């Protein structure tokens, strides 16, 4: 029965989505209830993995390779916990954000379907099932992104949809090739059988390329900023914090698990170099961005870049404590960004709602009249910069140390420049909070909307930084050997 609970984080939001579709009048209520249940099931599962190690189940009672497997290891569980908490925060926020608007009616079922797909991706152990999950993710994300109905949003998300389709089809071709050679789709079985060959390499490239499009790896990020910046705030948060991570998670899974025997330093260097490009270009564009949400979107591009910096280092380190540390740091970085960016977007959405726009240069008054929101932006920003004690500070520390250890010092320059640029764009926003006439307001003006943002940002700084150790134990590693 414990392994049966693997299905809950997928089945519950799916059921909720169906109900919210059928009963639009009470969709917000159903949505929040489902969100609470889904988050609970996700956390429960994370706890199970923590206590009893990896879980897996094969649906349908047919066993492998005929059935479809679900599995949760530390990596899945960490991301599942992130999607649970961030998803819950987004849901509570959306309750306030969409209250009384017709958009909420469309938001809830789509958002729950998106969540289904997210959890599905994190738990899937079957390559073709992942394709279906990715499509569900892409479709619901594009539909959600276009929810404002503005011309910019619709065209940006149309492009997003097409890019997503291109990515999934390419991924599917890679799956077809793998099936040709090994006759199975289960990741666990495949990782035992895969041997270096031209076919396997090609299918790795195809899958990686398809997923890199979806993960918005520079220079394939072109679709992300308009799509994320024009969506409603809760949707932007979900897209930036969670959806992009799903594609990244798969790439990480493929490179370190399924295809671990055939990856190679040169290819990993290419990914790292693209990541470096993402950091510099994304941060620079964020610095030049005129709108708050655009800034956040470009910052996502940069943060995704950091995640790809881990690949050449993971490749270069031999298995052992040092590599474990690096792997855990990578997960920590991804999770921290999930919390921080969700908090940032939610707060940005409040500022936008209050001021009626989100042009950074004119935000002084709005920012100052919403202290809790400004505070959330500051907290999330410090996690994006990588200031202590946030989780990304530790991740960057381990990253830099591994770069030194493997002799790949050039990544240090990239990290330092990226950090400076990040600090510049965050403080560019924060400096608006000073130097204006005070507009006396309560610290918290709209609890339902402001508290989720605040808590998410706080988690990225305090929870993930001060107590990073649990991530290590969740992944089954000894603890830090720095």
């Amino acid at each position: 029965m414990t392994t049966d609970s693997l299905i809950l984080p997928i089945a519950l939001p799916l059921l909720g989505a169906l109900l919210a579709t059928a009963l639009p009048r009470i969709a917000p209520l159903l949505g929040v209830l489902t969100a609470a249940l889904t988050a609970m099931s996700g956390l429960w599962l994370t706890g199970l993995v923590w206590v009893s190690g990896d879980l897996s189940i094969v649906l349908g009672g047919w066993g492998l390779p005929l059935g479809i497997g679900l599995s949760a290891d530390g990596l899945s569980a960490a991301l599942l916990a992130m999607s649970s908490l961030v998803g819950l925060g987004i849901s509570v926020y959306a309750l306030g954000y969409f209250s009384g608007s017709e958009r909420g009616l469309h938001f809830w079922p789509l958002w729950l379907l998106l969540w289904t797909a997210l959890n599905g991706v994190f738990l899937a152990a079957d390559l073709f099932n992942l394709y279906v999950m990715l499509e569900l993710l892409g479709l619901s994300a594009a539909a959600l992104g276009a929810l404002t109905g503005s011309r910019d949003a619709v065209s940006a998300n149309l492009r997003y949809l097409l890019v997503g389709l291109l990515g999934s089809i390419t991924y599917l071709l890679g799956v077809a090739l793998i099936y040709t050679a090994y006759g199975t789709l289960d990741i666990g079985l495949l990782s035992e059988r895969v041997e270096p060959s031209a076919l396997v390499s090609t299918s790795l490239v195809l899958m990686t390329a398809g997923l890199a499009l979806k993960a918005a790896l520079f220079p394939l990020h072109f679709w992300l900023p308009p799509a994320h910046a024009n969506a409603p705030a809760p949707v932007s948060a979900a897209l930036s914090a969670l959806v992009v991570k799903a594609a990244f998670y798969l790439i990480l899974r493929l490179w370190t698990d399924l295809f671990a025997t055939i990856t190679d330093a040169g290819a990993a260097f290419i990914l790292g170099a693209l990541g470096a490009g993402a950091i510099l270009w994304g941060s620079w564009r964020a610095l030049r961005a005129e709108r708050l949400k655009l800034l956040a979107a470009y910052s996502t591009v940069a943060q995704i870049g950091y995640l790809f910096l881990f690949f050449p280092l993971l490749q270069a380190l031999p298995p052992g404590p040092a590599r474990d540390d690096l792997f855990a740091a990578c997960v920590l970085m991804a999770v921290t960004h999930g919390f921080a960016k969700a908090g940032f977007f939610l707060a940005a959405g409040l500022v936008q709602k209050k001021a009626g726009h989100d042009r950074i240069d004119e935000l002084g008054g709005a920012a100052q009249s919403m202290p809790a929101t400004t505070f959330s932006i500051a907290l999330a920003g410090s996690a994006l910069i990588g200031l202590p004690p946030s989780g990304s500070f530790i991740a960057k520390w381990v990253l830099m140390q591994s770069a030194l250890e493997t002799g790949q010092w050039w990544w240090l320059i990239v990290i330092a420049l990226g950090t400076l640029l990040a600090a510049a764009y965050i403080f560019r926003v924060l400096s608006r909070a000073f130097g204006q006439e005070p507009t006396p307001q309560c610290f918290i003006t709209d609890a339902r909307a402001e508290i989720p943002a605040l808590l998410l940002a706080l988690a990225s700084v305090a929870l993930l930084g001060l107590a990073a150790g649990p991530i290590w134990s969740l992944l089954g590693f000894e603890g830090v050997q720095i």
Partner: protein
Amino acid sequence: MTLWLLLLAWVWPLLLAWPTAFQGGRWQSPGRVSRNSSPLGTQPGTHPSTRPSTHPGIHTGNRAATERWRWTLPMLGPLPALVAALTLSVGARLELPWLFLGTALGLDATAQVYLLFTAILWLAAGIYAAFAFRGTPHVGRFHAVFLLTMAGNFWLIVGQDLFSFYAGFAMMGLAAYGLVVHDGSPLALRAGKVYLVMALLGEVSLFAALVMIAQQTGTTEPSPEDLTQLTGLPIALALVGLGVKAGLVPLHLWLPLAHPAAPIPASAVLSGAMIKVAILGWLRFLPVGAIALPEWGALVAAGGVLTLFYALPIGVVQSDPKVILAYSSISKMGLLMLCLGLVLMEPGLAPVGVAAISLYAAQHGLAKGGLFLGVGLRKQAPGQPGFIQPLVLGGLIILALALAGAPFTSGAVAKYALKPILAGAEWPWVAAAVTVATLGTILLMARFLWVVGLRSKRHPQPGLLWPGIAWSLLLALVILFPFALGKPASWLGDWLTISLGISFAGLVAIGAWRNPAWLSPVIGLIPAGDLLVLARPVGRIVVSLWRQLWQPIDALQHRINQAAIGRFERIFKRPDTDGEDALRRWPVAGGLWIGIIALLLVALLARSPLSQSAPSSESNEERPPPDLEVNPGLEVNPDLEV
């Protein structure tokens, strides 16, 4: 149990920051409008009832009740740290494996001195901040930021590992931005910008230095012996990273801007406590006493001398008392760096030297903090008893004398402690240079007293009784310092130099008194922020000289420039979105995508030829044997992984 004080020392102010931010249930209380505010802040959409100053009576009842205690929180922040410094013995240590990735808090001899004077200073400044800001706009924000800065400062002192030091350093440095720009005036915002840019530069290089130190020593708590294996790069980065905080010329640019811009209690801790942590960092992360580093030592010492002498003349021509104090701080930091450099060159000096340096840092911290707070007290409102201002002035004179190192003051004792370092140095002229600097300091202090005594502009402020009492206690500490710590031999200090200096300063003062226009051309010759302001005209002069001297080269260069600019413009000067717009076109993005696929294919296919069995055995041979691989001491060449 008492060990937990080490944790409480910095967690306590951190915890207090939260309720402080909600001060009075409001982010800021109505009724007063910031001096420097413009009327643009409120946007038309806000509720009319929430507008400031039109309804001064809004906060009543509950809010007033919470107001009654929340404003006191800044005073309570430093108490655990103070208790820890007083009760814990050297060598106390608290392991916290769950924090971050495992850290340790503890007190060594240096840290104890630092914690003590830092806590005292924060307490005095906290009392000042609590009373002086009570009921002003943004009080919550100021107090919260103040407590955050305090927490960072304590954290880096009690933290024994690299993590804690950096975490505290970053928290302190960035939160202090909020202190610097608190006024919101254009001046403060400019100072904040300069401060932030330099602080971030410093932080990034410090971070890189610490990562390298951890990597090269293999531990996050390096002992001086561990540190002997450091290569040049981390040392250089640590020098730059902390040099920004220390005000090492030319990294000092932020200091004379930030100190006057910040409110009084903030300047006091900035100058008294925060810039001192640079010395602490160097003592911890450079191999002090373990190995002679002649080149680095000489460099630090030379930087110290430069800083020492650079700041004095610029400081003398200033007319804002806080700017004068800022330059005096820079100069004193120069002296400390000089001593540190000498210790680095001659490790034998370390046992005495380290203690002397921390003692001097403590003395300067207390005196400088007192001076800044005193400047604030000079701004008291009229209507107070007439004897107060002369008393404040008197206190300031004592503090200035202490700073200058006059006999029977703490300065004399501290300087006496430095004597062995200066005497043991390889450079014979060092002692003479320090004597000259002492003269300069006296002039600077004279100038300060002149400005404070006669020229001080009075912004009436509400009664500052309690801050005044806190200040008097600080003053008493500075006065008692020599009698508590120093031997009688040290009390006199350098009495000859001092009296010479004082007489000279007196002469100048008399001259200026009789003929006020005498010195006016000099005053304000160099604006605060010296290099930053001077750089532009100097640059212009250099360029024009260059042009005149080298016409032909200039013409050639002009042509090259034109070509370069043309190209540059073609690439970059288009509207900013162009690069991104090009990427957004399908053919471009798609072409790049296929290019990436091709690169990845080439990289991976090159490795896995069609033959099915060969690659696995090949790659096994190429790798080093497994037992070598896991040995962390061995350098693993990444190319071998192929």
